[in-house]
């Protein structure tokens, strides 16, 4: 019996694609559970969100992707955070825990009609300008309780975890 193996080189670009995909899927599913349409987000993801997020992960400047849900009352609740951790030695392992985490998201309570969302990125160092992105201010999260749901996805050079903050 003969065997054969093939080795593939996973680059920072692959890691960035993998994490951006995972975050897109997670945001879409969480928003859907909350009762917020993710149609617009997914329509625009490939042109407005994904290129910037991938570029910032490749350069190692993206600290966190934040999704704020703004209720008609003015309250910001819940908030979803995706902190990015970098591995300078490329020691990460490809993984994606979406299906396992989906059981947690199924427990989320819906938000009132008219609730909208904002996607905000924070940085851990100098970052390149990306089309369509400008300065933004995060809403206060005081009064919200955070629950960490662990790693959402990982690549060789970085991972994205997920944290959910709600009242």
């Amino acid at each position, binding site marked *: 019996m003969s065997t054969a193996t*093939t080795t593939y080189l*996973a680059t920072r670009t692959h890691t960035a694609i*993998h994490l951006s995909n995972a975050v897109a*899927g997670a945001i879409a*599913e969480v928003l859907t*559970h909350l009762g917020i*349409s993710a149609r617009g987000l997914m329509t625009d993801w490939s042109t407005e969100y994904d290129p910037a997020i991938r570029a910032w992960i490749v350069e190692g400047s993206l600290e966190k992707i934040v999704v704020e849900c703004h209720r008609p009352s003015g309250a910001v609740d819940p908030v979803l955070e995706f902190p990015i951790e970098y591995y300078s030695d490329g020691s990460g392992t*490809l993984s994606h825990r979406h299906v396992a985490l989906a059981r947690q998201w*199924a427990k989320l309570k819906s938000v009132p009609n008219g609730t909208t969302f904002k996607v905000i990125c924070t940085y851990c160092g100098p970052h390149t300008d990306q089309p369509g992105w400008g300065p933004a201010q995060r809403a206060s999260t005081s009064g919200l309780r955070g629950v960490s749901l662990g790693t959402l996805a990982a690549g060789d050079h970085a991972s994205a975890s997920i944290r959910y903050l709600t009242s």
Partner: protein
Amino acid sequence: MARHRDIAASPVRTAAETWDVIRDLIAATLDRSEHIDGELVRRVLDDAAPAGTALVAAGYTGGADITLVAAPLRLTIRTVGGSEAFKAHADENLNPVPGAATAQDWTVYLPRPAGLSALVDDVIGGAEHLSSGPPPQEAQESTNSNSAVIDLRSLDPARRS
């Protein structure tokens, strides 16, 4: 005629790129039929992109089929993610899938996982040629085909009178 294709997804392709590859494969396959306009197919699948992209991004298309039924062709498509995506990319066959040359109608069935059901329904609800219901197990011949129906029971000697 059952066929299957695996399409490489994350981390080889973004979710949107993966959906585009699936769209192009289905459109090129159906364009072989003189009854189906490949450009119309592309437009329909472009309209479904928000749902398709989310399904791919979340990884659901790795465990559930996207199914094209264009009798006599029944094509199932799955995405391959993670480390297996590299090999899937190397082995990928993106040529038009044989079997749809005589097809007269077509429907693409998308997975409808509970977590994205509202998004899938929102995007493809009421759209011609798209469905989130379970696909038929076999591609049915269209009603105006020229194929003959054979009653197999008549070939059973025990049933002949």
